């Protein structure tokens, strides 16, 4: 139920068993079935979700009802609308399950309480957000400067697990291509081999 969470935590910041028990008190275990939402646009994002099992995505919908995928999350990752979570303003993202999922939620109240009482949690969160920020910078660079085939190659090389598990049109959306463009790119790449 929370094995992976503490495995990841201990990799970054080692915890004593007492500290682990203390942090455990603040976590909300939550199962989500495929296609169910943990957050819908317009609601306040009340929790950060850590994925113990399954796959989720965060996406936004534009004026023409096109979905744009902001983030995927599989085992060991966290997902949220960070802006909404930190400011309590309405979320601009939707977050739903691509597969049946087991999550651990850290609610805003739990988050604040842990920041106040557990210095190791603060360190863990800092490392987590720093890592996410670097990933975001890389992704932004890739999406604005790389040609379509390289964007796709970089995605499949960086996230081979996700590439196996989510449909192609979602990968296209994530790397900023239309499904048709991605399809052409993949065909060209296959022909080259």
């Amino acid at each position: 139920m929370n094995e992976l969470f503490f495995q990841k935590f201990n990799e970054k910041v080692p915890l004593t068993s007492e500290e682990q028990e203390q942090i455990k008190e603040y976590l909300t275990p939550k199962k989500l079935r495929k296609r169910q939402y943990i957050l819908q646009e317009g609601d306040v994002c009340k929790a950060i979700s850590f994925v113990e099992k399954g796959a989720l995505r965060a996406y936004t919908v534009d004026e023409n009802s096109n979905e744009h995928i902001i983030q995927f999350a599989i085992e060991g990752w966290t997902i949220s609308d960070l802006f909404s979570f930190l400011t309590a303003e309405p979320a601009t993202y939707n977050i739903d399950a691509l597969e049946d999922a087991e999550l651990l939620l850290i609610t805003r109240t739990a988050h604040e309480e842990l920041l106040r009482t557990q210095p190791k949690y603060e360190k863990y969160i800092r490392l987590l957000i720093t890592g996410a920020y670097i990933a975001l910078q890389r992704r932004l660079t890739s999406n604005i400067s790389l040609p379509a085939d390289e964007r796709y190659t970089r995605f499949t090389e960086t996230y081979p697990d996700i590439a196996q598990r989510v449909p192609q049109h979602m990968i296209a959306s994530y790397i900023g291509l239309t499904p048709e463009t991605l399809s052409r790119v993949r065909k060209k790449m296959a022909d080259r081999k």
Partner: protein
Amino acid sequence: MKTIQTIAIIGASGNMGAAISKSLAKGNYRLLLCASEQDKVQAVADEIKKSKPAATVETVDCAVDASWEADIIIAAVPYAAEEKVAQKIREVANQKIVISIANPLNDTYDGLVTAPDTSAAEELQKLLPNSKVIKAFNTTFAADFSTPVIDGKQADAFIAGNDGEALQTVSELVSTAGFNPVIAGDLAVSGTLERMQLLLIQLNMKYDYNWLAGWKILHR
């Protein structure tokens, strides 16, 4: 709120559990009905689907699985069964709202089995120290759920608990069920609420209200 909340009702085949389930089906909730008697709880789910085809309702045969999926858990079980349920769901109910509806009546309905300084809700909180236990739906009879307006007046339904956000969430449930929610105070008020229902049960038997009666605070 747009994001659909999932509610697990443990003991959904009982009088109160079934009444609560049916009345919450009016709201934008996903209901997981849970009880040991599968055929009885299935009948409750079928009835809900028949009267409200758009309702999202499912039966789940395991209290642990239902509570794991849920955002809100309603322990619609008698006081005597609370401990067993609490032990089962303890881990998956961590940080979640757990509603205690029980009135800890003795066998002859003329007193409570709990000590004067505690209540069914406070005992449940001790068993689930990391859950947000809220007292609700204990001052309303099962029949009141289909008739929350009695003699032209909407019955009050009292709520007690220690977490402000959880009290707000449960207030919305109570409104959905058709009652006027009244937040009475922190969880320590539960003993008073449970004794109020003891009185109402005694009055019901004495004056034959036919189990359709409720509380209404008159105020200016």
